[in-house]
């Protein structure tokens, strides 16, 4: 209750790079992009269809976690910008759940090979100062990262996930980025680049340190007022898709912990919240089931990550054995009140990514069963015999101990580890929990100084960047650099598959390559999937309807811009 810091904070929709889409427009399939299951939106969302009336006001939590009143800044690159969503817009938005694209400032795109990417820029878009958006603005925004590496948040001008760009050219309404090599895996980041007005930003000497007090954007809102706590945004009548934006006034105010947020939501002082509220059904929905709703979409998977550089975790048989002995249903209940379901061992978010499943697993239940007897049998067979003290030893007879390191204060993680350690002990494994400050756990991940930890496996659309970066040997963390391959899976064949996948343009080939990674997950257990991790959306429908829901999963909490064009008046 006292700390309003890291853990309880909403995921600010700050990183609007993971993107979303409706089923409005199907674009041609192309390189680097894997179209997953197209759950067609149901016609109505959030209960009622709503009316065409305007919504007076919608209140949401502040985007910035820290504020001392009065420090105004809208520079979208600043870590502390008051909003990064509603002024500067991206080229396209991609739904991270079903991977559908919504064209935004670009009406379409085309890859030539995996080295040349062309966007067609929308006509008739006006900046909030009245000037028209031009392809030159897009070129300027894309090239900004070349001059200032601190602004290259999409990694266009360096070699992260694909080769760096060589140049950007404008022909008519088309803006083409030519890369020095295969760059297909950069796509998701590139479509999320914020497009800035060249006529304003070219006059700024150092955009990195620029304090942007008077934003000129293409977005649906302009600044109404800000008193140091409460940011009021006013709808723009000349927005390029103004007919879709019904919210007259958008208020961003306050940083709430779970208790305060539940109180505010129930009292109608907040219309939506995407931070953690434990047991939202009881804390919120049950208080008024017709108006109060929540939807926790799977954003990725919480996985058990063993340290593969250590015995016995380097033994696949050992990993296979304990993976069968974990009670995922109990983890779901204890850590998330049953809201987040046990996750598929494939690492894919099911059912959203069902169409990527290889044949051999397609019809099977890929959530590993909880089977203590089988796990014990596998351990016996692999030579991990129960010793004199009732605990299993290594095959050579040396004592076997497992220290499970968990971030102290991360309550859901602590509950998860409690269940796992109990499960491991039931297999006669000498396991214990070590609670450590989150910063220390980070340091241990970098130095490979752990036995087991919990980790997040992202479930976005670029499989090469999610499961791929978890398994690629060049993504193994170093002493100074945090990276995704914490378990330290190091296999040349896997590396080759990932390299191929990140440059692949053919959907059939992509599916085959993803299948190969899924196979690694299912048979090698580099990490063990436990439960899905949430992208939370908690909302009220007394003022606005049309929020994303399980029936209409058109967006997640990182796609607020898209949500703004879907909200309709409840009255």
């Amino acid at each position: 209750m006292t700390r309003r810091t890291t853990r309880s904070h909403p995921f600010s929709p700050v990183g609007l790079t993971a993107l979303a889409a409706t089923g409005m427009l199907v674009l041609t399939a192309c390189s680097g992009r894997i179209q997953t299951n197209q759950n067609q939106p149901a016609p109505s969302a959030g209960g009622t269809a709503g009316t065409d009336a305007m919504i007076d006001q919608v209140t949401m939590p502040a985007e910035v976690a820290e504020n001392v009143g009065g420090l105004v800044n809208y520079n979208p690159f600043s870590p502390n910008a008051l909003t990064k969503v509603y002024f500067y817009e991206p080229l396209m938005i991609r739904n991270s759940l079903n991977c559908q694209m919504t064209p935004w400032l670009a009406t379409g795109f085309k890859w030539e090979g995996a080295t040349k990417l062309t966007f067609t820029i929308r006509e008739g878009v006006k900046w909030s100062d009245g000037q028209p958006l031009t392809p030159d603005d897009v070129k300027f925004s894309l090239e900004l990262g070349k001059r200032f590496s601190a602004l290259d948040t999409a990694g266009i001008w360096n070699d992260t996930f694909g080769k760096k760009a060589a140049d950007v050219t404008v022909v008519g309404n088309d803006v083409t980025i030519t890369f020095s090599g295969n760059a297909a895996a950069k796509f998701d980041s590139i479509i999320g680049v914020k497009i800035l007005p060249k006529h304003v930003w070219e006059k700024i000497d150092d955009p990195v340190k620029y304090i942007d007090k008077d934003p000129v954007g293409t977005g649906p809102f302009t600044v109404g007022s800000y008193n140091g706590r409460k940011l009021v945004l006013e709808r723009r009548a000349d927005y390029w898709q103004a007919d879709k934006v019904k919210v007259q006034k958008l208020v961003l105010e306050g940083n709430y912990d779970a208790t305060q947020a539940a109180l505010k939501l129930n009292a109608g002082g907040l219309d939506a919240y995407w931070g953690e509220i434990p047991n939202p059904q009881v804390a919120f929905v049950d208080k008024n089931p017709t108006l109060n709703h929540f939807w926790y979409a799977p954003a990725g998977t919480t996985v058990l990550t063993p340290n593969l550089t250590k015995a016995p975790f380097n033994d696949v048989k050992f990993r296979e054995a304990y993976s069968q002995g974990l009670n995922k249903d109990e983890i779901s209940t204890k850590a998330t009140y049953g809201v987040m379901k046990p996750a598929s061992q494939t690492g894919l978010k099911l059912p959203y990514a069902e169409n990527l499943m290889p044949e051999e697993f397609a019809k099977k239940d890929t959530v590993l069963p909880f089977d203590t007897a089988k796990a014990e049998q596998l351990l016996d067979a692999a030579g991990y015999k129960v010793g004199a003290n009732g605990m299993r030893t290594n095959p050579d007879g040396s004592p076997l101990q497992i220290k499970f390191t968990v971030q102290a204060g991360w309550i859901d993680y602590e509950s998860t580890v409690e269940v796992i350690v109990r499960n491991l002990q039931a297999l006669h494994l000498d396991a214990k929990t070590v609670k450590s400050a989150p910063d220390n756990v980070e340091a241990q991940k970098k130095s490979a100084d752990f036995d087991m930890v919990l980790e997040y496996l992202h479930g976005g659309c670029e499989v090469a960047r999610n499961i791929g970066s978890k398994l690629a040997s060049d993504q193994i963390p170093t002493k100074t650099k945090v990276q995704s391959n914490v378990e330290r899976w190091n296999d040349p064949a896997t590396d080759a598959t990932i390299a191929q996948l990140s440059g692949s343009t053919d959907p059939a080939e992509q599916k085959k390559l993803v299948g190969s990674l899924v196979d690694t997950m299912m048979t090698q257990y580099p990490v063990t999937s436990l439960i899905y991790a949430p992208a939370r959306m908690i909302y009220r429908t007394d003022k606005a309807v049309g929020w994303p829901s399980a029936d209409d999963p058109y967006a997640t909490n990182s796609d607020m811009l898209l949500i703004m064009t879907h909200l309709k008046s409840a009255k």
Partner: protein
Amino acid sequence: MRYFLRRIGFFIATLWAAVTLNFIIPRLQPGDPAEIMFKKLQGKDAELDPAKIEALRAMLGDPAGANLWDQYWNYLGSLARGDFGISYTYFPYEVKTVIGVALPWTLVLVGVTLIISFVVGTLLGAFAAWRRNSRFDSFVTLGSTFIGTLPSFWLALLILFAFGYVLGWFPTAGGYDASTPGWNGEFLADALYHSVLPASVLLITGPIGWILGMRNTMIMNLGEDYVRLARAKGVPDAQIALRYAARNALLPSITGLALALGSMLGGQILIEQVFDYPGLGRLTAQAIDNKDYPLLQALLLFTIVGVLVANLIADVLYGILDPRARKVTS
């Protein structure tokens, strides 16, 4: 004169040591500000995007970049120019600006409650000593000893829960709500309303030290010969209590007050955190959380300089007021 020069020399040496430690300590801590900020912005369950982390690192500058010696000289140089750098948390705002915004909140809240606590505590302590072993004395002494054993943040949580959440009489967080900061009645009323709960915690725990300190010194003074003489010659009680005993007993408390005013610049970290009060204490907690070295260094420096200056003033005053202090040290 030598006494004062020595005091000033001591002041400068301590200041240098403090500034140097202030430079070294944050750099001994593990953790990369860019990674921490990335995690903070993205939340716990988020894709680890190397491009974004690299960009942040470029933005904040690599703390391990230049060699330590160069960093140290740069640091001293910019301190001398009054340049504390740019805050990571509030990038690209300068540390000076960020502190400037938070400073008034702490100055008013902590300053006002400190002075009220001092006056009330000293009076209560003096009265308790004068009427020692009376009911009033046992009530005040036992009561403050009891409250003194409770951690102040716990008391704060209790008060927040009771008056903020259960009864709902006062706001649970923040320094103000709907008003616009400035010299207008609406804002001042709003700010006052928000300060009631944190101020009440400080006013409950604040006087305890002064009460006990004053009571003890006062009792000692009451046993002195000059008090006995005053009594013998028939000086009225009130005059003995206030003009004779209390006046002399006040001296150590004044030194204490000077130090407390000095360390006030550190804010009340725990209390401000509990009430989400936008002062220097909460800012310090944020700076620690975010590994915001520039901000943290400036805040620590503020506290240290505040205490040292207060100490120096107290030393000088002592030297003037009490000739014995000069003799003993020289």
